[in-house]
C-alpha cells in the first residue's frame, strides 16, 4: 500500500448527492425562455433516395413552429454522418425535423409528414455485400479505406467460391484492405506443436445508453449554447464548432451529467448539433429529445466481426504464431476500426512470437457503429479464451499456466511495430485472481450433477489506457479555495473527480477545500482528452499533476520572493508554503493567491505557456487575476503503449436441458497500476463484468435481411442482462503495482474490465460443454440446446445480425 493522502482512498464525488436525490440535471432537464421541442422523422428504409417531402399537412397544424430538412444544412461529405439526409443509408437515419410548442404537437406533426423515398440496394450482412454481384451499402462503394496515403470508398468483391470457403471455415483468400504483420509467421506455425484454426462471429449490438441523446441549443451574440448529453467535455468543442461552422470560442457546451455513453457520445455527434441549426433557423431555443427507439437507430453500436483465426502453440504453450483475418461489419458510415484493434490486443495479451493481421471493413446498412467498450479488444477476447483452453487441453497444460506462459510483462513488445509498453503485470494478475477464485480446487471439483455441469473459465482483457499531451489547470483563490478545473466530462465513472485528486495530492491540501470546476465549458475548463478509451485516469492524473506541480512551483517562487531565500528552500504542506526547517516562516495558500494576483504575470494567469491548447488559453485568460494559476501541458515522459489489463475467473453451472447457466462465482482482477479510487475501480470491474456477461450470452443485433429492418429497438429485444442474470456477488481485486510513467503509477481500466468478463464466460461455457467452441457471441440458450441435442444451428455459418 502506498502512503498517499488521496490516491488509493475512497471519497464522495460531488455529483453523487444530485444523482441520489434526483436534483442532478441531465440534458433534457434544461429549459430556456421561448424553447420549442423538436422531433425527427427518420428513414423507414435501409437505403434510399428521398424524392419528395410533403410536409404541408404538418406545417399547417396548430403549435408547429418550423421544419428543418437536409437542404437547410451545410452538406456533409460521406462517410461522415450528416445531421439530416436525403440519401438515408440505414433504417432510422434522420431525414427532417419538426419543431413545435410541445413534444406532443411535434409528434403529431411528424405523424403527418409524408416522405417519398426511392429504395436502393442494401446489405445487412457484410458477406452479402462482399460477394460478387452483391449490393453495396452506399452508392460510393462497400468499403471505406482509411490510410495515411489517402482515404476513400472502394468496392471490394470476393468470388462466390471465396465466400463459400470462408463460410466453410477455410482461410479467407479474398482481398483485404488492411494488413500488418511482424515476425516470421511461417516459421511460427512450423515450430508449433498444436495449431488451432477457427472461423468466428461476434455480433454487433447497441450501446444502450439509458439516456436517449438530448440536446438543447440557442444562440446569443454569435455564441451557441448547447446543453447536451456527452461523455467528454472540452474534447467535444472542436467537433461541435466544426459542425456549427463557428470558431471554437463561440461554442459553450453544458453537460453536467450523462445517462450513459459507453463510447457512443465520445465526440460531437450530429443529433447534438441539429438543434443548434434549427435554433438558428427559428430564432428560438430548440430542444431535441429523441425517442428510445431512435436511440437504437442513431445511438451507435459495436462493430461485428466475421473472422478466421489460426494460432500456433509450442509444446510449452507459448504462442508461436497468430494469423487473424477479420471482416468488419462497419455500419454505413465507416466508423469503427475494431478489427485492427483486435489484432493489437492479441499481440499484447497473448504476445505471439509472430503475427499477421488482415482486415476488410465492410459497410452495411445497419446502425452506425462506434467505439463500444473495448472496441475490437473485447470481441477478440471472447474468441481467444476458448482457443487458449483448447490448446492447453491438447498440450496437457493447465489453462492458467498457458496464460501465464504468454502473459504480458514489462519487457513485452507489442503491436505491428513491436514497440514497448509502459509496464504490465498480467502474470501477477492471473496469480492474484487464481488465488481469490481458488482456481485449482474449482478446476478439479466434480463437474457433472444430473443435467447440470460446472464450467470454469479464465478471461483476459486489454485496452490501451492512457495518452499524453493534454492540459491541466488549477487555481487557488484568495479565499483559500483550491479550484480543480476538469474538462474531462462526466460519463458516470467519477474519473473526472478522481483524477483531480492527483492535483490535491501534489498540493497537499485539504480535499474539503477543493472545488471541482466542471459541467460547462464556460466554467474555464482546460483542454482535456476524451472521456473514453480507458484513458482518463492515466492521462489526467498526469495533466493534473503537471498543473498542480506548476502551482506548487509558483507558490514556492512567490514565497521565496516574499519571505526570502531560494525556491528550493521551500516546500508545501497543510495549505501552506513553508521554509524547510523553519516552519514558522510560511505563507498560507490564500495569502499566496492574493500575492499572485498582485504579482500578475504567469502567477495569476496574465501569461501562460505557449504550448497549451487554445481552449486552455481562453480558460486562463478568463480567470486571469483571480488567484494563483497552475497550468501546463503534459509533456512528461511517455514511451510505449500504456496497457490497461484485467483478468477474470468465472464458474458457471450450465443446465444441459435448457441451455441456461447460472454464474456461481466471478472474480475480476484489475491490472491498472496504482489504484486511484477503490470504489470507482470496483464499480468499473463490476459494471464491466455485467456487460461482458451480456455480450457473452444475450446481446446482439438482429436484422431482417429481406427488408433491412432491425428487431432491436427497445430494451426487451436488445437483451441487456438483468439483476438475476448476473451473480449475486461479483468479487474484484487489483494488482496495484505502479506504472513508472504515471506520476502516481495509475493506468486506466474501463474497457479491459469487460473484455476479461466476456472471455471468462465463453471459456467457461466451452469448458462445461467438454471443450466445444461456438466461436461466436452471443452464445444463446438456443445454441446450447441445439448443440447438446446434436442439432445443427439454425443460422448458416458466419451469418451475422441474426438470432
Amino acid at each position: 500500500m502506498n502512503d498517499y493522502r488521496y490516491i488509493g482512498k475512497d471519497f464522495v464525488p460531488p455529483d453523487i448527492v444530485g444523482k441520489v436525490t434526483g436534483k442532478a440535471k441531465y440534458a433534457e432537464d434544461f429549459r430556456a425562455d421561448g424553447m420549442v421541442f423538436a422531433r425527427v422523422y427518420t428513414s423507414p428504409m435501409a437505403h434510399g433516395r428521398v424524392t419528395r417531402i410533403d410536409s404541408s399537412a404538418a406545417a399547417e397544424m396548430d403549435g408547429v413552429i418550423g421544419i428543418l430538412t437536409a437542404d437547410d444544412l451545410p452538406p456533409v461529405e460521406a462517410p461522415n454522418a450528416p445531421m439530416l439526409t436525403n440519401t438515408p443509408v440505414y433504417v432510422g437515419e434522420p431525414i427532417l425535423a419538426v419543431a413545435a410548442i410541445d413534444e406532443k404537437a411535434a409528434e403529431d406533426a411528424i405523424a403527418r409528414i409524408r416522405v417519398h423515398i426511392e429504395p436502393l440496394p442494401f446489405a445487412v450482412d457484410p458477406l452479402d455485400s462482399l460477394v460478387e454481384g452483391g449490393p453495396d451499402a452506399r452508392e460510393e462503394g462497400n468499403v471505406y479505406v482509411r490510410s495515411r496515403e489517402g482515404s476513400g470508398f472502394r468496392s471490394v468483391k470476393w468470388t462466390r467460391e471465396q465466400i463459400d470457403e470462408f463460410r466453410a471455415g477455410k482461410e479467407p483468400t479474398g482481398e483485404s484492405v488492411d494488413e500488418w504483420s511482424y515476425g516470421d509467421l511461417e516459421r511460427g506455425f512450423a515450430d508449433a506443436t498444436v495449431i488451432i484454426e477457427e472461423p468466428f462471429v461476434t455480433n454487433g449490438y447497441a450501446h444502450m445508453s439509458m439516456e436517449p441523446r438530448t440536446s438543447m441549443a440557442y444562440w446569443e451574440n454569435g455564441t451557441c449554447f448547447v446543453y447536451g448529453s456527452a461523455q467528454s467535455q472540452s474534447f467535444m468543442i472542436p467537433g461541435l464548432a466544426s459542425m456549427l461552422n463557428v470558431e471554437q470560442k463561440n461554442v459553450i457546451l453544458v453537460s453536467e451529467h450523462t445517462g450513459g455513453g459507453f463510447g457512443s457520445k465520445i465526440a460531437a455527434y450530429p443529433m447534438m448539433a441539429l438543434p443548434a441549426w434549427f435554433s438558428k433557423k427559428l430564432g428560438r431555443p430548440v430542444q431535441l429529445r429523441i425517442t428510445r427507439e431512435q436511440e437504437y437507430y442513431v445511438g451507435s453500436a459495436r462493430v461485428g466481426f466475421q473472422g478466421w483465426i489460426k494460432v500456433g502453440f509450442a509444446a510449452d504453450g507459448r504462442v508461436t504464431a497468430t494469423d487473424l483475418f477479420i471482416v468488419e461489419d462497419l455500419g454505413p458510415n465507416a466508423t469503427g476500426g475494431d478489427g485492427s484493434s483486435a489484432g493489437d490486443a492479441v499481440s499484447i495479451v497473448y504476445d505471439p512470437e509472430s503475427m499477421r493481421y488482415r482486415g476488410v471493413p465492410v459497410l452495411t446498412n445497419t446502425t452506425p457503429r462506434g467505439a463500444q467498450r473495448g472496441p475490437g479488444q473485447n470481441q477478440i477476447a471472447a474468441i481467444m479464451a476458448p482457443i487458449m483452453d483448447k490448446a492447453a487441453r491438447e498440450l496437457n497444460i493447465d489453462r492458467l499456466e498457458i496464460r501465464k506462459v504468454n502473459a504480458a510483462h514489462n519487457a513485452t513488445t507489442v503491436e505491428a511495430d513491436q514497440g514497448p509498453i509502459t509496464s504490465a503485470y498480467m502474470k501477477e494478475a492471473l496469480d492474484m485472481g487464481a488465488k481469490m477464485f481458488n482456481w485449482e480446487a474449482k478446476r478439479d471439483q466434480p463437474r457433472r450433477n444430473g443435467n447440470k455441469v460446472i464450467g470454469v473459465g479464465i478471461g483476459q482483457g486489454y485496452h490501451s489506457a492512457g495518452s499524453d499531451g493534454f492540459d491541466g489547470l488549477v487555481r487557488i483563490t484568495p479565499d483559500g479555495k483550491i479550484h480543480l478545473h476538469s474538462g474531462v466530462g462526466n460519463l458516470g465513472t467519477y474519473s473526472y473527480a478522481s483524477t483531480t485528486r492527483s492535483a490535491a495530492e501534489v498540493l497537499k491540501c485539504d480535499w474539503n477545500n477543493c472545488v471541482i470546476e466542471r459541467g460547462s465549458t464556460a466554467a474555464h475548463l482546460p483542454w482535456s482528452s476524451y472521456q473514453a478509451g480507458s484513458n482518463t485516469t492515466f492521462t489526467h492524473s498526469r495533466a493534473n499533476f503537471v498543473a498542480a506541480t506548476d502551482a506548487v512551483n509558483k507558490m514556492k517562487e512567490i514565497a521565496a520572493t516574499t519571505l526570502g531565500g531560494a525556491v528550493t528552500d521551500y516546500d508545501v504542506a497543510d495549505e501552506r508554503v513553508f521554509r524547510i526547517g523553519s516552519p514558522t516562516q510560511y505563507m498560507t495558500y490564500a495569502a499566496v493567491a492574493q500575492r499572485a494576483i498582485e504579482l500578475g504575470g504567469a502567477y495569476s494567469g496574465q501569461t501562460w505557456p505557449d504550448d497549451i491548447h487554445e481552449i486552455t488559453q481562453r480558460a486562463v485568460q478568463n480567470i486571469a487575476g483571480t488567484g494563483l494559476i497552475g497550468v501546463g501541458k503534459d509533456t512528461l515522459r511517455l514511451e510505449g503503449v500504456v496497457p490497461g489489463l484485467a483478468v477474470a475467473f468465472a464458474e458457471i453451472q450450465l443446465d444441459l436441458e435448457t441451455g441456461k447457466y447460472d454464474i456461481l462465482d466471478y472474480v475480476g482482477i484489475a491490472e491498472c497500476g496504482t489504484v486511484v479510487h477503490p470504489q470507482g475501480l470496483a464499480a468499473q470491474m463490476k459494471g464491466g463484468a455485467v456487460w461482458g456477461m451480456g455480450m457473452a450470452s444475450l446481446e446482439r443485433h438482429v436484422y431482417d435481411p429481406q427488408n433491412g429492418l432491425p428487431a432491436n429497438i427497445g430494451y426487451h429485444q436488445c437483451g441487456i442482462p438483468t439483476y438475476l442474470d448476473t451473480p449475486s456477488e461479483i468479487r474484484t481485486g487489483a494488482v496495484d503495482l505502479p506504472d513508472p510513467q504515471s506520476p502516481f503509477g495509475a493506468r486506466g481500466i474501463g474497457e479491459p474490465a469487460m473484455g476479461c468478463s466476456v472471455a471468462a464466460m465463453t471459456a467457461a461455457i466451452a469448458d462445461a460443454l467438454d471443450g466445444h467452441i461456438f466461436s461466436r457471441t452471443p452464445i444463446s440458450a438456443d445454441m446450447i440446446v441445439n448443440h447438446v441435442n446434436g442439432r445443427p444451428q439454425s443460422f448458416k455459418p458466419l451469418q451475422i445480425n441474426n438470432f
Partner: protein
Amino acid sequence: MDVATYKEDIWGREVILGASWDLLWLVVVSAFVVIALHAVILAVRRRAARPSSAGPRVPRHSAVDRIFHWIMAVTVIVLLITGVFPIIGLEFSWLTIHWIAGLVLTASVVFHIVRSLFWQDLKAMWISARDLKEPFDATLKPGKYSVAQKSMHAAVTVLVLLVIGSGLVMFAMIDTPWWERSNSIAESTLGWVFLIHGLSTLALIALIALHIYFGLRPEKLFYTRSMIKGWISKEELEANHDPERWAPGKSS
C-alpha cells in the same frame, strides 16, 4: 365507396391491401334489388302456360356434366362461406377447408376445360350475333343454351378463372401438406392478388345469387331438374328451344 383498401408496406409506402369488403353489402343489396325487381315484373306480367314435364323425355345434361356442375356448386358455396363469413365476423377455422375446396374447384374446372375443349361442342357456349337478338325477338328460340345462360357461363368462366388464378398465387402464402409457403410475393403484387381475388369473389356472389334465383324460378325450374336428373320433357324442349339448333338425342 372505395373499391380497394390500402395499407402501409414494411417501408411505410402505401400499397393495396385487397378489395374493400364494404362492397359486399353493395353487392348483396344490388343483387337483392335486381332479383326483387325481376320477380315483381314477372309476377305482374301474364304468365304463359308452362309446358308439362310429363311425356317423353330428352337428355339435356350428361351425368359427367351434372357431377361437374354440382361439385362446382358445392365447392363455390363452401369457398364463399369459408372466405366471406370470417370477414363479416363469423369466425371459425376456415383456411384449410377453403384451400382444399379451392383445389377441388380448380381440379374440376381443369377437367371441365379439357373435356369441353376436346370432347364437347365448344360452340354450344359461344355467343353469336344471332344470340344477341334473342331477348328482343320472341320468335327466336335458342339452341341448347339461351343467351342468358351463355352469358352467365361466360361471366362465371372469367370470374372463376380469376378467382382460381389469384387463389393459386395465394398458395405461396400458406402451408399445405405438400407445399411449404414461400411467403415471398412482393407486398405491392400481393395487394393486387388479394384485390383480384376479392373483387372476383364479390362479382361471383352477385352472379351466383342471380343463378340460384333463376334456377329456382318456377318457369326455369325444369333446367334445375335437368341438372339433377339429366332430362327435360319433349314439351319443355319444344317450348323453349329451337329444334333446328338443338336436337338432343342426335348429338350431345
